[in-house]
């Protein structure tokens, strides 16, 4: 029997980046707020403290900070005519669970989308003609422009504390930064991180070849820093345990290091852990939400939590799942091409080349998640789509991170995977390689989408989310284009040998190897309710007191890591709620 708790002004589903920002921005308004987090409570001490967190097996390999498929997973198939099967253990992508979400185990690469990416369909149509867009490609504009979002990107970056080199300040190109970025109002708050030999070798060669290398914008402190909430960060010590780990050094931006201690001081904010929201409850007319029903792990009972505003701040896949389970928005039907929830699911194109140098010692265990030089010369706004035969782009980077030997021990092609040859090979080659990789866009397609699985259920008896996805020629052509560019730079570095891995025409999505935790779309934003779940303020078109935050809003994937974009959008939405919605609740568009 469900318990009903006293009503709150706001209930927030999930306490990662977007939920923490929503919490503190609305707490300032004096609202009575409850955040519900399905996973455990986590803080730097004790959860990320040295030395226990420096444990590759527990966190890097056994996914200690990630979602447990036993409790929450998806089913997957390549096409509609297949039966989807459950993702039984993690691999391709690693949603977090627990306080901090994926915002505590990330690499902290922090980007703004290009202005062109935010109005991609219009840009393609204006520059190249709508005729180059493949028939089944369902790209669209975001409904909000770079110029509108600039102050919110700026605020997010200063809240995180970005170390980096601006490339375009107010329209003025700054040497050493990214000359292809849209204008930003000011410099980054901190100087770039220090860089190791591998990224510097790439920088020097790229420069020599007439390209434009710049340091990865990093939400990792290069010096001491205090953000707008009074939260303090200390300079990175390049411990090498970044991606998949919580930061042991108060250097990497996370909800823990940037928001939560400040947020917990508001008496009008509370949060509960091990409380998984099962459903958003709607009023009889379906036009407003009345609150949420969640499962309280400690009490072992369902709870109805009434609220005036529901902020969905879970991982993108879970926000889509909850919409489908709750009847928020019309589910997408790929046959008819109608409906919106689950539409335009997209992923991230990755690939790269490992270069081996018998005479160079890289000390690969030194680094941070954002220790990288990057070029954006082949970015979305630099490519002639008509000439190249694809829409999209990528950044190319040489990173030094995670030099831990279980997961990261690249070996030349002629070294066997076991036996005496392997044993000799690991001695010969550990510390003697560097990678140059692409991080690229992925366009939305009519037959790549999310819906509810007809067979498999979770521990609460709810249908699992079903993912139907595969790579398309458009994106594998982009991958092959980047391969040629990367191998050209690598060859110029004159390695002993190199080994490439890129998706080629006909490649099918493989859910086993890690690729990226950049699952986007499903609850996309836009200007037309027929093709978007959310309006330009990330407000549900159908249920006006439901706001959905995160990368689910992206209509297709950008070439960049998503956190910078979704953080800016979160501040944009919170500003609209505070400015307009609280005084006059209703559709903002």
């Amino acid at each position: 029997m469900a318990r009903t708790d006293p009503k709150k002004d706001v209930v927030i589903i999930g306490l990662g980046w977007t939920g923490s920002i929503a919490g503190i921005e609305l707490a300032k308004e004096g609202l009575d707020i409850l955040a519900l987090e399905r996973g455990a409570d986590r803080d730097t001490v004790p959860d990320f403290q040295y030395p226990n967190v420096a444990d590759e097996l527990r966190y890097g390999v056994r996914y200690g900070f990630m979602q447990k498929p036993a409790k929450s997973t998806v089913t997957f198939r390549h096409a509609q005519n297949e039966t989807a099967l459950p993702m039984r253990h993690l691999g391709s992508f690693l949603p977090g669970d627990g306080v901090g979400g994926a915002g505590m185990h990330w690499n902290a690469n922090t980007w703004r989308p290009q202005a062109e990416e935010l109005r991609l369909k219009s840009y393609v149509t204006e520059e190249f003609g709508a005729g180059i867009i493949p028939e089944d490609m369902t790209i669209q504009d975001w409904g909000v422009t770079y110029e509108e979002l600039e102050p919110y990107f700026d605020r997010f970056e200063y809240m995180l504390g970005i170390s980096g080199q601006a490339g375009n300040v107010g329209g003025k190109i700054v040497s050493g930064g990214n000359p292809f970025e849209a204008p930003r109002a000011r410099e980054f708050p901190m100087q770039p991180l220090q860089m190791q030999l591998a990224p510097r070798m790439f920088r020097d060669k790229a420069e020599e070849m007439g390209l434009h290398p710049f340091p990865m914008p990093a939400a990792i402190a290069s010096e001491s820093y205090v953000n707008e909430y009074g939260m303090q960060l200390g300079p990175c010590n390049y411990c090498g345990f970044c991606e998949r780990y919580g930061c042991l050094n108060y250097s990497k931006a996370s909800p823990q290091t940037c928001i939560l201690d400040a947020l917990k001081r508001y008496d009008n904010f509370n949060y509960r852990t091990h409380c998984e929201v099962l459903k958003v409850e709607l009023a009889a007319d379906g036009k407003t939400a009345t609150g949420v029903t969640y499962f309280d792990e400690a009490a072992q009972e369902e709870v109805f939590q009434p609220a005036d505003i529901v902020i969905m701040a879970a991982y993108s896949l879970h926000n889509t799942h909850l919409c489908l389970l709750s009847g928020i928005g019309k589910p997408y039907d790929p046959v008819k091409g109608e409906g919106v929830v689950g539409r335009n699911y997209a992923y991230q194109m990755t690939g790269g080349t490992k270069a081996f140098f018998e005479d160079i010692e890289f000390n690969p265990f030194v680094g941070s998640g954002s220790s990288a030089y990057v070029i954006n010369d082949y970015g979305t706004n630099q490519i002639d789509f008509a000439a190249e035969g694809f829409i999209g782009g990528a950044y190319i980077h040489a990173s030094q991170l995670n030099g831990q030997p279980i997961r990261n021990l690249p070996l030349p092609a002629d070294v066997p995977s076991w036996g005496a040859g392997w044993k000799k090979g690991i001695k010969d080659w550990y510390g003697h390689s560097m990678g140059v990789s692409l991080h690229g866009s992925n366009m939305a397609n009519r037959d790549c989408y999310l819906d509810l699985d007809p067979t498999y259920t979770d521990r609460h008896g709810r249908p699992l989310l079903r993912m139907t996805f595969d790579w398309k020629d458009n994106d594998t052509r982009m991958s092959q284009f980047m391969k040629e560019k990367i191998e050209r730079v690598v060859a110029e570095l004159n390695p002993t040998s190199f080994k490439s891995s890129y998706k080629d025409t006909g490649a099918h999505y493989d859910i086993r190897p890690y690729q990226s935790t950049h699952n986007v779309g499903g609850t996309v934003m836009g200007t037309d309710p027929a093709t978007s779940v959310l309006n330009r303020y990330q407000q549900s078109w159908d249920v006006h007191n439901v706001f959905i935050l995160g990368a689910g809003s992206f209509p297709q994937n950008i070439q960049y890591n998503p956190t910078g974009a979704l953080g800016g959008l979160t501040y944009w939405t919170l500003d609209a709620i505070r400015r307009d919605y609280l005084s006059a609740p209703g559709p903002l568009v």
Partner: protein
Amino acid sequence: MSTRTFKLSRRGFMAAGMAGTALATLTRHPFAHAAVPDLADYVPVFFSEYEWNFINAATSRLIPSHGEGPGALEARVPVFIDLQLAGDFGTAADWYMAEPHDAGASPLKGFQSPLTPAEVYRQGISFFDDWCKETNDSDFVSLDDDAQDLALVALEKGDVGLPDNLRDFFGLLLQNTKEGYFSDPRYGGNHGMAAWVYIGFPGARASFLEWNDPAMDNVEYPLGPVSISGERA
């Protein structure tokens, strides 16, 4: 404390004994490993004696003792695998194991066996050893090194007729062997951090600010590893 004794094959004993000698020269740290029993004295918590002998033999082909650096036996990889299979990994505690299963599905869809990793090992060892007996007239443990390697190659290539439920057996064995070689010693393998010493990984040191200085380019890091418990090597 169990009273069972599990003996390695004679070859395994010799290899592990030689490793002990090699390790003595590698580990200079002041903290002794006195509490850790020799591999030969270890009492498995998951494996039967028969399975234990197989795991010792198989892992010592995946990472042989011969040549520079520790082999799987010196690193006590079998201890690691035994403890992993007895724990949450072995029981698939974090995995989604609900029915129905389609173990023969495209590998691109990932692990689909109804069996836990522990069950895959148990049934996989039995099936593979039967195949060895049929093919070579000998169980795996009794084959010579070259024949063991050939059998493992057949297993890796999917040429031994494994049922779909067990098709991930070799992949798990190889992955877990490397995990046991390179993970922190708290998990039973990487004994004395010898695998870290061998390749030059400093373990849980986790502080390298001054190593970004271009003056340190191409300079080999001079310090040996530390473990999470504070051992040094």
